[in-house]
């Protein structure tokens, strides 16, 4: 059974294409990650799936309903945790959930039961009647997850669920997500943390500049770029790149220079490294350091985009919001 399906999903803002003809198919019960740097179009994609944005072009089916024509049915069947906090921090945790339950047309008894269950699941039962203003970032995020799932949605969207959280809280949240998925909820999460996608997802789709760069199981993606990744720091990376390309070493992908480092994908690094030394000696290029490791999703990204994966600085407004959040968090 298919939970989410998009055909040529596109969103343009004033001529700028944020999402560029995405075809996506997520099965029921899957834990699917949309991975990409900031500005890749992940949030725009999720907003269209959750009916918050109208696509410029293309078709979206969520739980069998058209996200544009049957927006109300889609909304009733999904839960979403936004990237930016969306709790009312003047209300208590329970009040936030209660209003949510009312908005999703849950009856009083059902509401009461589900609120208790949801709070229990994210370990917030003891703080149920505290005002959200007094909550830490991690607690707020947990409460948002509780809220997103309390009306038993078939699909749960999580937009950067662990953004800005400390490693320990992040692991907790990962556990909740896994637990939920284990109960049969389809989860679509966006993240720009490689290790998050790697640790959680059954399937990953890597996005960059509005387009799908690669898609598949994390292990398959890593295998696809072949063997090991060698990183070489030397005084002439471009020269060495050319020499290696010329000598027809058995590389599995075009070598890339990024941040002054030469990156080569090979089948077996331990056999290639001696060859690299021979070549660099011949070309009299001084190698300062050489390291190799098994590929990560970061290397997958680099491999498919030719760019290093970097967390870009947020824009001015985002930083302002972060600051406000910090200040409000302190109160």
């Amino acid at each position, binding site marked *: 059974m298919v939970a989410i399906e998009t055909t040529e999903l596109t969103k343009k803002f004033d001529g700028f294409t944020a999402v560029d003809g995405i075809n996506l198919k997520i099965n029921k019960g899957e834990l699917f990650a949309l991975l990409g740097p900031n500005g890749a179009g992940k949030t725009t994609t999720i907003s269209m799936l959750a009916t918050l944005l109208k696509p410029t072009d293309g078709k979206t089916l969520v739980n069998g309903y058209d996200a544009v024509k049957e927006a109300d049915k889609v909304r009733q069947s999904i839960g979403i945790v936004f990237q930016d906090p*969306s709790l*009312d921090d003047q209300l208590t945790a329970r009040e936030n959930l209660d209003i949510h339950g*009312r908005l999703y047309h849950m009856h009083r008894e059902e509401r009461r039961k589900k609120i208790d269950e949801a709070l229990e699941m994210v370990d917030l039962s003891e703080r149920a009647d505290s005002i959200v203003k007094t909550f830490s970032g991690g607690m707020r995020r947990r409460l948002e997850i509780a809220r997103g799932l309390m009306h038993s949605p078939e699909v749960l969207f999580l937009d950067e669920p662990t953004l800005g959280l400390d490693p320990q809280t992040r692991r907790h949240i990962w556990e909740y997500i896994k637990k939920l998925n284990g109960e049969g909820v389809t989860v679509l999460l966006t993240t720009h943390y490689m290790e998050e996608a790697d640790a959680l997802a059954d399937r990953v789709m890597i996005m960059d500049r509005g387009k799908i760069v690669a898609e598949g199981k994390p292990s398959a993606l890593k295998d696809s770029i072949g063997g090991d990744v060698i990183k070489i720091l030397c005084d002439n990376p471009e020269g060495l790149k050319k020499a290696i390309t010329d000598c027809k070493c058995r590389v599995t992908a075009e070598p890339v220079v990024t941040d002054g480092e030469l990156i080569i994908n090979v089948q077996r690094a331990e056999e290639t490294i001696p060859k690299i030394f021979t070549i660099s000696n011949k070309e009299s290029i001084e190698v300062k350091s050489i390291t190799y490791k098994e590929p990560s999703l970061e290397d997958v990204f680099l491999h498919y985009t030719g760019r290093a994966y970097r967390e870009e600085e947020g824009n001015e407004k985002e930083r302002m919001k972060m600051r406000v959040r910090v200040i409000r968090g302190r109160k």
Partner: protein
Amino acid sequence: MIQDIYAIYLREMIRIKRSRVRLVTTMVMPLLWLGIIGNAFNSAFKIVMPVDFISFLTPGIMVMTMVFTGTISGITTVFDREFGFLKEMLVAPVRRESVLIGKMLGGVTQSIFQGIIILILGFIMGMKLVSSSPVMAVAGMLLTMLLVSMAFVSFGLAVASKMSSMEGFQMVMNFMIQPMVFLSGAFYPVSSLPGWLQWGVKVNPLTYGVDAMRYFSINLHEFPIWLDFSVLAVFSAALITLGGWAFRKS
């Protein structure tokens, strides 16, 4: 639909209950007017008018308070957007209209509530109701308060949809709301004003709100009551349409 509106309204009520500071701060200005200006002019005023100044001023200050409170509560939608709760409402299986109506009713309730507090304070300071029928007085005042509140909550909503932060708030208050209140006759009788001022007062829809309020509370008015209500109804309807349109667009 009703259930959705109630959910949004319930949240507004909880917020109002929690923000006592805002409640107190919005009452400072009206209190200064009533307590100081009201008492200062009280005896001098009797010479020219059939009522004392406190009785005359209270309906005006009630309108002023409701205009301020209504506008502010509409504008606080900016916070909903800035701090994300708007998204929670928009992604729920709820019509946009329900969100709008729920928010509007919340603002109107608060605004009328504060108007009534001013009336009570006015009574404490010596205001006297002049009316042949107390039922009529209460009903008329409530209707006027409802129209004025709805208009300015909607106005606030419209402004909020054009604002990205609370920075523009002072601008709106100083350049639009304050002049409107000052030109409404809330603080002075409009019968013998110099020409240009008279003109300014007469084109101001709020003038008719103040006039209606005085008609029901102290039986003193400048314009026929049908004119007051016609202007108020048109003004309210126009602003509600504008607010609703702006809210849905944003």
